[in-house]
């Protein structure tokens, strides 16, 4: 993959708003944001209600994902363009999720909803109707998803990239500063992890930095891009943003996202934890 294959800008989206081959999908941390307004002809995917198993902590099944995309009018050959708030955190998460279930043609709107709003581009309240499809998903591609045992086995072996803020990494905070402080049982980070906050990959307006800047960022922090890499954060959404940078923009094949992330690791009994910067 490369930047031109996986990112589109706002001008491109405006030019394709009425293209039936393109399905624009908004995915937000604030799941009510779409109700307020959204880009014309965009459908919504709710990262909680639509993408999480309602009982267990896990994703919806392959069959449930097929039913979801079929109901939203997304076909196997649709070009899906994802965007959302929070600098595309949850849009990146959805991108990774679409790739997990094997959707071929998916892209991110660079800068997401924030860039669109800061450009003063039009947003509407009208909800589009799309004809249902018969979507067929693939089994999960576990080459891009890490689980806790692999993370523990990777301490000191693989690149572990903690993309949370420095205060979360050091253990001062348990969650991002705009959320109430709860979640894991213990603060800190996985030993040997490098703290490369997701935010270093993005400009103020939410667009991704250049390939040269992104490569310099990771190599400057001592990440050997030739080695296998696992990215994690608190619940796997910010690390999906960093996975997107490493796997999709920079084309590193050997990168996984650990969606259990700190809310799982920081509550495990007996695993090693480091505190401090």
């Amino acid at each position, binding site marked *: 993959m490369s930047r031109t294959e996986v990112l589109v800008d706002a001008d491109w989206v405006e030019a394709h708003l009425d293209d039936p081959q393109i399905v624009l999908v908004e995915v937000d941390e*604030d799941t009510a*944001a779409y109700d307020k307004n959204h880009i014309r002809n965009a459908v919504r995917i709710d990262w909680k209600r639509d993408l999480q198993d309602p009982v267990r902590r896990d994703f919806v099944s392959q069959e449930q994902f097929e039913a979801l995309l079929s109901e939203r009018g997304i076909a196997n050959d649709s070009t899906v363009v994802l965007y959302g*708030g*929070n*600098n595309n955190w949850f849009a990146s998460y959805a991108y990774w999720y679409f790739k997990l279930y094997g959707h071929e043609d998916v892209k991110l709107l660079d800068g997401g909803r*924030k860039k669109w*709003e*800061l*450009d*003063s581009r039009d947003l509407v309240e009208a909800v589009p109707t799309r004809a249902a499809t018969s979507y067929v998903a693939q089994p999960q591609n576990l080459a891009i998803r890490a689980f806790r045992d692999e993370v523990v086995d990777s301490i000191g072996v693989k690149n572990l990239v903690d993309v949370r*803020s*420095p*205060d979360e990494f050091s253990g*001062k*905070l348990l*969650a*991002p*500063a*705009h*959320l*109430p*402080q709860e979640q894991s049982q213990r603060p800190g980070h996985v030993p040997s992890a490098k703290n490369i*906050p997701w*935010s*270093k990959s993005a400009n*103020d*307006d939410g667009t991704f930095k250049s390939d040269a800047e992104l490569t310099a960022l990771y190599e400057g922090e001592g990440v050997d891009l030739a080695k296998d890499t696992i990215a994690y954060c608190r619940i796997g959404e910010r690390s999906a943003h960093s996975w997107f940078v490493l796997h999709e923009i920079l084309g590193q094949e050997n990168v996984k996202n650990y969606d259990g992330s700190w809310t799982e690791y920081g509550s495990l009994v007996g695993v090693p934890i480091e505190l401090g910067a």
Partner: protein
Amino acid sequence: MCGATAGGLNRDGIAEGKETVIEGTIERDGEPITGYVRLLDSTGEFTAEVPTSATGAFRFFAAAGTWTLRALVPGGSADRSVVATSGQVHEVRIAV
């Protein structure tokens, strides 16, 4: 806005005296304006970001220390420094 809480946000659910809160509004020519607010730490590193409410209000749960608030609105931005004390609610108005 008669009767609204300071900063335009309800404080229900905040553990007063326990959580360190930085909140306030973005304003242009004295009127609230919607946009985004970024919270930067004492070294200028990004920590968090929120969209404002429809009345320009924002809130962060932060640690004690020196922070910079960066407001982003269409066509402009502005920074404000704030020193947060543990367990206190700090209200800040940012003029853009």
